[in-house]
């Protein structure tokens, strides 16, 4: 950020503050809470999601808002910390009186917010978290647009025969996301006659994975399945190349930022496969090319790093989902929005957004099933491999 931009941000914040004072009393806007990590280990991803959310809000407001009112995002930092995530939810609901929230990136953050949703009966769109527990624990205020690893693994089944895998090792981040992926993908592999070798984990903050990779180098598996965020993935690819590992590498989870990988891992990224839920490199192959192009254009216009698009589209779709729900509900009240979410049906950047019921009967959570793409990095370029 340049100084000028920083100044503008501060100025805009001050303007918004005074604007919010001015409009108090006669609510002209519909508030939407955004509960994301803006500091701490997940800061980069949380900021991307928030930027995507802002693009959606501006687009919607430019078209006249919803129900004749403009929408206003109330963005709070949950500091990558579950205690804060719960406190932020409480603040958004009780102080800002938001009727609906989007959040909270990581699974432990989302899980910490969930009791608050039950307490105040306010719905939340979950845009990133992948833990299976989120939609199966009987919280009817949860509507998730990101795929849990089971959904991703299920979609992987069709791609699997074309990758010619005989035996795969797993290298996953040691959190719910990585462990969940190892378990769900492991099941699918085994069910389709593929052997599963080592399942190794890496600490969230670890920078050196050469010990785990050295072990895999000498295993007889032909493929390494990797699940982690883009920073660590960059390191895994670089270190695998340094160790002379020539196996097929497939990554899962949809947070890989292939552009950042190409930029930072260089040649080490060549020949790797990635499962992703949004393909901004091929806007014409996405479910809604017009929306994709608009989103990418805005993203570029605001000077954001293109690599962030694969993360931030979830923020964009999350806000659009919320607004669709508010429109269906006809009023900006939590109970009405929660009920109307079941009727939401539109095409997001990564496929149809329509919630299916999951979890114990009578208190089901909503889960939308997005598309899953397999892309390949070849010679520093991203390709949709013809399989």
């Amino acid at each position, binding site marked *: 950020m340049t100084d000028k931009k920083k100044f503008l941000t501060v100025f805009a914040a001050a303007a918004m503050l005074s604007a919010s004072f001015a409009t108090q009393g006669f609510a002209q806007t519909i508030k939407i809470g955004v509960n994301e990590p803006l500091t701490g280990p997940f800061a980069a991803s949380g900021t991307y999601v928030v930027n995507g959310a802002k693009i959606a809000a501006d687009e919607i407001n430019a078209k006249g808002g919803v129900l004749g009112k403009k929408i206003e995002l109330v963005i709070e*930092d949950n*500091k990558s910390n*579950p205690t804060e995530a719960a*406190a932020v939810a*409480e603040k958004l609901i009780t102080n800002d009186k938001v009727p609906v929230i989007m959040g909270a990136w990581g699974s*432990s953050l989302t899980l910490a917010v*969930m*009791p608050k949703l039950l307490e105040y009966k306010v719905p939340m769109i979950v845009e990133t978290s992948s833990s299976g527990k989120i939609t199966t624990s009987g919280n009817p205020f949860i509507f998730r647009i990101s795929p849990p690893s089971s959904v991703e693994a299920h979609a992987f089944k069709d791609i699997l025969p074309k990758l010619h895998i005989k035996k795969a090792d797993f290298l996953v981040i040691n959190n*719910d996301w990585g462990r*969940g992926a190892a378990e769900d993908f492991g099941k699918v592999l085994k069910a389709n006659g593929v052997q599963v070798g080592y399942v190794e984990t890496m600490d969230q903050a670890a920078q050196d994975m050469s010990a785990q990779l050295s072990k895999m180098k000498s295993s007889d598996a032909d493929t390494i399945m990797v699940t982690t965020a883009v920073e660590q993935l960059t390191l895994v690819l670089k270190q695998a190349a340094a160790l002379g590992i020539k196996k097929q590498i497939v990554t899962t989870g949809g947070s890989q930022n292939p552009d950042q990988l190409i930029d930072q891992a260089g040649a080490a990224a060549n020949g790797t496969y990635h499962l992703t839920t949004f393909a901004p490199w091929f806007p014409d192959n996405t479910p809604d090319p017009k929306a994709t192009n608009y989103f990418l254009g805005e993203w570029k216009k605001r000077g954001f790093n293109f690599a962030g698009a694969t993360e931030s589209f979830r923020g964009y779709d999350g806000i659009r989902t919320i607004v669709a729900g508010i429109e269906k509900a006809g009023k900006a009240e939590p109970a009405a929005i929660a009920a109307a979410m079941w009727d939401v049906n539109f095409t997001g950047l990564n496929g149809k957004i329509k919630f299916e019921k999951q979890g114990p009967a009578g208190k089901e959570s909503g889960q939308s099933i997005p598309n899953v793409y397999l892309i390949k990095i070849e010679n520093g370029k991203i390709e949709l491999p013809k399989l």
Partner: protein
Amino acid sequence: MKRYLPWIALIAAASIPLWLHDPYILNAFITTGIFIIAAMSLNLLLGYTGQLNLGQVAFFGIGAYTSALVSLGFDVELIGGIRVVHEPWPVWTGLLIGIVVSAFCGYIVGKLSFRVRGAYFVIVTISFAEVVRLVALNWVELTQGPLALTSIPPVTLGLPGLGYYDFFSKQSYFYLVLGVLAISYIIISRLVNSRTGRAMVALKENESLAVSVGIDVTSYLVLAAVVSAGIAGAAGGLYAHYLKIIDPDVFLFLYTVTMVIMVVTGGKGTLAGPVVGGLIFGFIPVFSRSFVGPELQWIIYGVFMIVIVFVLPEGIVPAIEKWFASKDKSRMPESTQAQVQDAS
């Protein structure tokens, strides 16, 4: 006057839910209260025996996990194929067992780590906390690891046949936390004002002298560690049942740092120190949130901390006490001054 101050503070605190109807602020009071209890436990070691335990969060986390697991139930297979199945028990037993288990861990850690002092002690305690965190992260069968323990039940009090009282509402939980805080305060104040407590302070001032007059240093330190760990465990249990989810992040080093900040800025070795420091640093984030961006909130937090340590290296409470003492002194006639000094 000074004698009644804690009671006045308690009554004032107890009145908060009666006039404060903002759930967000009340929530901040509850989480701050939980961390104040943890900070008080740290203060017992740091302030009264001079031992800086940077692994205090381990006891906090052990209390949280034990209490959650006792009330949720578990089913694990130990080495050698022994299977341990535990059915869910009432939550209050979980809290109590959490305290006992934490205290027991405090005993073990105290026995082992009080062989070293100073910087070595600091690092052995950090190591302990890291190992415990990694166990919680990797023993998935018991702790569910990073998948987190969810749906932790709220605290209920009672016995079968006699009816239950549950602490589900924020107001009732506030009183529960306040109650535990008050009990911890009383326990610590009784302990440090007893003969044992004076021995502890003596060995903090001059350990070799304390040894030479026949004080069994290690046993006093271990006693302090046990009480301290038990109180930290109680705070952890309260945390688990309030947040209703815990994962290995409960062992974040940041939480220990929060406790140290509360104790040192408030005034270590004073009973009121952690409470005052805790209120200040518990509420800085709440207030700064509405004015500045996320990174700047942290920067303000850090700068404020450095400034307090610079201006009041002894801490806030001792500085206030000194200020009052000097004011009283200047008002009193010469003759009584000597008595005041004797008494204090």
